[in-house]
């Protein structure tokens, strides 16, 4: 009975808490080292065999990549022009130094070293910690899109909670505000994950916003939590929400959340101490 009370107290205490105590950090780091030594070679072997199986697709993939590179080169020219224009306008409009640095993100590459087997806490672990400048609630992405947020940090390793774990009705929720790429000023919504169907949902969209199938959903960057413009997924459908006043869109996540090998942590410049 005392044990039961004690455990409920521990669970309740750890439910909404930031920062990790030293035993947690120690356990995470000690295990992280060995997990890293295991996870990476095993992953390399698994990837190798998967690649062998897809050898026939390589030719097709190469074609697609060539086209992508060609498009990228064109975009690069445009990007350079827009960037220089943008700088000029910022000068003209007398932007402060903080405002200029606002979207200057750094990307840190991180090895994935373990993934949890707890069905309600499916976190992954990465081999970057507070020593490398990782802080809680930083965004974690792959080349495809947003994976999750850093949930706890140790010296050498950190734990990442995927966006699939972020239930808007749970008590320790972190809401992700999202918008549609190209319609940033009209469409806003909150991202949640539907575990039963394996899709994301974007709720509370204004009914006048035109959200259509195939639109790209990106983070809105409101509330200074997530950086702006990280890809979340593509819209599958859009229908009237629960109360009839707003719309809810179903979204196919862009990133995959298992068999991860390498991820990137997005470091946004801190407005409080630049």
């Amino acid at each position, binding site marked *: 009975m005392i*044990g*039961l009370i004690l*455990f409920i107290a*521990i*669970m*309740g205490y*750890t*439910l909404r808490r930031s920062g*990790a105590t030293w*035993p*947690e950090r120690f*356990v*995470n780091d000690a*295990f992280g080292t*060995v*997990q*890293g030594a*295991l*996870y990476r070679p*095993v*992953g390399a072997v*698994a990837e190798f065999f998967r690649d062998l199986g897809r050898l026939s697709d390589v030719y097709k993939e190469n074609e697609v990549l060539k086209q992508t590179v060609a498009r990228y080169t064109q975009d690069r020219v445009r990007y350079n022009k827009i960037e220089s224009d943008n700088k000029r306008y910022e000068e003209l409009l007398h932007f402060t130094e903080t405002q200029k640095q606002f979207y200057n993100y750094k990307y840190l590459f991180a090895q994935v*070293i*373990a*993934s*949890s*087997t*707890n*069905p*309600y*806490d*499916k*976190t992954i*672990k990465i081999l970057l910690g507070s020593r490398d400048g990782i802080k809680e609630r930083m965004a974690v992405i792959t080349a495809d899109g947003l994976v999750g947020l850093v*949930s*706890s940090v140790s010296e050498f390793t950190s*734990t990442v*909670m995927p966006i699939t*774990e972020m*239930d808007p*009705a*749970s*008590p*320790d929720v972190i809401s992700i505000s999202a918008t549609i790429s190209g319609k940033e000023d009209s469409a806003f919504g909150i991202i949640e994950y539907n*575990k*039963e169907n*394996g899709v994301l949902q974007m709720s509370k969209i204004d009914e006048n916003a035109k959200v259509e199938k195939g639109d790209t959903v990106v983070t809105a960057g409101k509330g200074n939590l997530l950086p702006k413009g990280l890809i979340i997924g593509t819209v599958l459908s859009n229908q009237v929400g629960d109360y009839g006043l707003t719309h809810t869109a179903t979204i196919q996540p862009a990133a*995959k959340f*298992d*068999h991860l090998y390498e991820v990137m942590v997005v470091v946004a410049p801190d407005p409080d101490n630049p």
Partner: protein
Amino acid sequence: MMTMRMNRTIVVTLALLLLQTAVIPWLIPSAWSDRLLPHLPFVMTVFVAMFAGRHRGFLFGLGFGLLEDTLSYGHMIGAYAFGMALFGYLIGLAAEQRSSRTLALLLVTVGIGSGLLDLLVYFIYKLFLLTHLPIAYVVYWQVVPTLLLQTFAGLLLYLPVRRWFVKNVAAAKEEANA
């Protein structure tokens, strides 16, 4: 009377925990990665509870449950520590009523135990409003596949455990006397 070589068992269980978090996720295909979530330390907890008694089962389950919770800390710590300690104790208690330790009995215990543990963890997360999945879906989607996989893991671990970790105190005494 049987007991276990606890030092060896703990080292091997740590190795199994590493295997579970770093190797097994690669072996499970993407489509099944939400469904097959084995907990090898729990299988070992069942063995410890059966062979070494309820107190050791309790402490073993508590320790490794807490370790697993800490390693996968996202929402909260304590669900698996509580569940594994509870079932370590209960299985040990039930096993002390019986003298035989057959393979079939062990596998049934691992199966039922892991099913109940997953349900208990589900209810704990439900209690704290961290999950909103209906129970029928959880049982079909995750509990039953995991239960089958854990029973299989129990089958694989049975022989090594029997051979290297369990020592028969009565038999050893007889040998010493003879």
